[in-house]
């Protein structure tokens, strides 16, 4: 039993990415209210507005993007904006009429329609009134799920669907939240790491870290029904201590990467995991200096592998 109380000067070191690299990277950073340009030829896009006749002013803190004559500001910290086909991890916040409201770290709750889910047993039919009454047996308030963005209507409320065996309720693990901009878009967002941990990298910045569950191939109809019923189960499988420690280690590695603004992808997580094995206990990664060590070393390994 011990506890450390640090002074900020001991745990927060000045960022060594100095101003010079920022200037060399040719990045135009602006703060809210800062004038971007006085040139009348440019048009305002997202995150910019006209102040007076020709002055273009930023409404966000972020990076200026220019496409021909259009100027937009990409915010540094933002909520998830949603795009069709994105894999997102979310939490049910409300059960409504024929739909669920899902928290996906966006500006508004996403919608999951009753017609956009798979029924247990995999039966294909129109959803009836009795299905409507049984909605809480599928998803109740607080449940975690992984889904795909089906459409993004003009009001930016994302419509989700879970009509694939990949999607559905989440169990056997815990949630790690990172800024959505850090999630690297790639072919698959479902990863089984070699250490026996499954990771679902939601593009909305919610990451589900869980024990690896081998999906048994459905051989006959009875089997298919069992798998489908497990789809909406709230019961965790038996998880041994070694797996729990591995889940904690992966989760802490992701936190370490995110706290140092490093991209989160399966390779980054694996590099961080390998580096983190130098520390006996996963909880040691919660210490700021150890987290920094893991993050910087993982970054080095990625740079080396690219050369």
């Amino acid at each position: 039993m011990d506890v450390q109380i640090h002074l900020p000067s001991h745990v927060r070191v000045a960022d060594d990415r100095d101003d010079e690299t920022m200037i060399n990277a040719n990045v135009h950073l602006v703060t809210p209210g800062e004038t971007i340009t006085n040139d009348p030829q440019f048009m305002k896009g997202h995150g910019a507005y006209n102040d007076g006749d020709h002055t273009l002013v930023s409404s966000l803190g972020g990076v200026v993007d220019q496409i021909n004559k259009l100027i937009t500001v990409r915010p540094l910290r933002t909520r998830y904006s949603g795009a069709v086909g994105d894999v997102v991890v979310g939490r049910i916040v409300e059960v409504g009429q024929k739909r669920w409201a899902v928290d996906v770290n966006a500006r508004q709750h996403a919608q999951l329609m009753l017609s956009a889910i798979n029924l247990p047993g995999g039966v294909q039919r129109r959803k009836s009134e009795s299905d409507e009454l049984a909605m809480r047996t599928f998803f109740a308030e607080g449940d975690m799920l992984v889904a795909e963005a089906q459409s993004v209507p003009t009001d930016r409320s994302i419509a989700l669907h879970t009509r694939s065996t990949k999607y559905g309720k989440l169990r056997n693990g815990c949630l790690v939240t990172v800024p959505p901009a850090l999630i690297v878009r790639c072919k698959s967002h479902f990863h089984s790491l070699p250490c026996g941990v499954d990771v679902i990298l939601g593009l909305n910045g919610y990451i589900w870290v869980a024990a690896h569950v081998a999906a048994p191939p459905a051989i006959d109809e009875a089997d298919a029904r069992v798998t489908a019923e497990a789809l909406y189960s709230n019961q965790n499988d038996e998880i041994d201590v070694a797996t729990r420690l591995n889940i904690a280690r992966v989760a802490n590695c992701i936190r370490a990467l995110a706290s140092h603004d490093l991209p989160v992808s399966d390779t980054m997580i694996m590099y961080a995991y390998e580096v983190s094995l130098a520390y006996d206990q996963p909880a040691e990664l919660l210490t700021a200096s150890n987290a920094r060590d893991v993050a910087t070393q993982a970054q080095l390994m990625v740079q080396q592998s690219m050369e």
Partner: protein
Amino acid sequence: MVNPLISPAEAQYITSGVLADVRADGRKRTQFRDLVLETGVLANASGSCRLQLDGTDILVGVKVDVDQVDQDALNCGRFECSVDCAPTAAVSLGDTRSLDDVNTEWTQLLTRRFTRNALAGIDLTQLCIIPESTCWVVYIDAVVLAVAGNVADALFLAVKAALATTTVPATTLVDLADGEQDFEVVDDPAAAKPIAGIADLPLCVTINKIGTRHILDATLLEEQVASARIFVFANPDASVAHVQKSGSGGIEPSLLREMTRTGANMASLLHHRLAETLKLEAEQADLAKKTGTQVKKWGFFA
């Protein structure tokens, strides 16, 4: 308490993790997260502190002011506390009612420890300026900027650190002709004195009961799963000053004893660590003074 949503599977994962002594972030049951603390962050306050416990973020400002003495304690000063939680501190604090509830709960928790009876270790007559007339009132105002669990422990630690760096200006009494007295505040800041006895102010350690076991320094989700919790207020020598229980679940007598002891030991450790950190900070400030430089305050950039 702040009530986030949690799924049954997450709750079960946490409960079985506590039983296996591997919590969701890999900590053991009695393991505390690291704290980061800085005092003197508010220029206009008599004493201040910002404390971060992982994602929990608390700012405390202490202000001493002159007021009339209480009629039932004519020679004593007093403390007044308020806790204000930012609406953005947690997602579940969106509506005003739950925000009011947590503000009231935390203000009461703090106020209860700063009544005249609870403050037996501090000589309140030191805050009296003119007996039976005027005294110093120490206003403790805490703002909870972000919540990631275990607010109570962080709150008391931050308040104690802020009070430890609080100075009360010196006063001189002036005799008016008709037997009345008045006072003048001495302008010299070097004459201002710290409040005596703050070092012995009890600290709070919250122990949550999850399943059949108890844990220290719970995260927000762990607090949600806990069936009962006790707040143990203990002195530096690990003697218990006050225990308060909350939550709907029961605690077995034998477990209660174990929980109280765990809490008291942890509180004692926190006392020592806080004293060390404050001493280190004071030494840095002294050194800077001698060399004629200024210690860089991190403030909101910490």
